[in-house]
């Protein structure tokens, strides 16, 4: 008999009212109204200030308006849990449009298992009604062409036409650097790559 381990508690959908417990002010509760968990770039955090934004689309192309999103990233020097920069953020898709955004700093490259570097990226988790277990993806940056080409995760994607689904597109809007990262939960050509890590 193989060694016994405990089994992981199984997942269930976060449901349409996920905001009550995670972003109560968004649900309409008079609680934690000063929290701005979508703003990671606070105070003196070093690095380029960026806005990471997008819409999640369902398999019919409609925006997902009840999603909760979380990001986890390194600081501008490629360090996780670095002092002065938490690296974690949470936001809700807009109830009317499905648009979401984070104000953060562009992360630096981080080490892969063998010491090679991973291209700068932000890990993104998606929770929503109809999603039975959260979806995990990564946003890379369109102006990091060389680093992206060397990235061990991006390189391992067999279907090369799927790689662009993980690249956030850089632009400038009103003097601010914006990276656009639209997610397609289900699509013949554009379906976002999701990970099991």
């Amino acid at each position, binding site marked *: 008999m193989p060694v016994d381990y405990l089994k992981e508690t199984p997942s269930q959908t976060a449901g349409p009212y996920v905001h009550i417990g995670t972003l109560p002010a968004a649900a309409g509760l008079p609680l934690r109204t000063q929290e701005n968990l979508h703003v990671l770039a606070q105070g003196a955090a070093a690095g380029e200030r960026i806005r990471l934004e997008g819409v999640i689309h369902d398999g019919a192309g409609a925006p997902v308006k009840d999603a909760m999103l979380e990001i986890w990233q390194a600081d501008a020097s490629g360090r996780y849990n670095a002092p002065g920069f938490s690296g974690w953020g949470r936001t809700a898709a807009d109830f009317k449009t499905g648009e979401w955004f984070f104000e953060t700093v562009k992360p630096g490259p981080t080490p892969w298992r063998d010491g090679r570097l991973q291209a700068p990226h932000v890990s993104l988790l998606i929770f929503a009604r109809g999603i039975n277990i959260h979806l995990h993806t990564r946003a890379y940056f369109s102006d990091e062409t060389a680093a992206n080409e060397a990235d061990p995760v991006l390189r391992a994607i067999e279907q090369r036409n799927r790689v662009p689904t993980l690249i956030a597109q850089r632009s400038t809007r009103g003097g601010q650097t914006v990276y656009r990262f639209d997610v397609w939960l289900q699509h013949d050509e554009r379906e976002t790559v999701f990970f*099991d*890590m």
Partner: protein
Amino acid sequence: MSGDFIRRDRAWHPPGLTPNYKTSVLRAPRRALLSFEQSIGEKSGPAFGHGAIDPLDNDLIANFNTGAPALGERILLHGRVLDECGRPVPHTLIEIWQANAAGRYRHVNDGYLAPLDPNFGGCGRTLSDAEGRYHFLTIKPGPYPWRNNGSDWRAAHIHLSIFGEAFAQRLITQIYFEGDPLIALCPIVNTIPDKRAIDMLIARLDMGEMAPFDRLAYRFDIVLRGRRATYFENRTEGA
């Protein structure tokens, strides 16, 4: 940095596509998930301190701050957080949310005809202690109808979100209550293929922790992905 997390058993969790839970049909990826080994970003995660937690945050009977208690069946919800190797998971953030005793959520998008409770918000959070224990005071939520196959009914449940020590352990799930006949009928419960996995989501009546003339108690233990030891690990981060 410690070792890798044990692979997630995707056959134990609900699959993405579960047609009897209709909303999943357009929200489930069609492509297989891409499997990769973990790097530092998956093996680390945010740390939350006591500074952010209000002493009333784990008392949903009182924390809507109206001065009067929430209506409903008063319960203690408590348990331990362990990993698959049986190790306690200390100091991790646990968040819960739920409907009130009538089955109504305090959320701008909930239009169920049951009344709001003026003394109940339905939002709580806490940190597990050094041995992985946690507890909440709350009221037992009511079941409620939702469209799906006409008017399906959700079994009474409390939503639970937990972080663990790394992003790889992140989990959101729902807690059900022993003896509820709606569990067997609930299309969301039944997205989980294995009866033993469903059993893990059912809180047990715990008369040992009952407080006389005050409240009942339910026990709910949480298991997160386990972490391997690092014997003879191949070169890891930056080594």
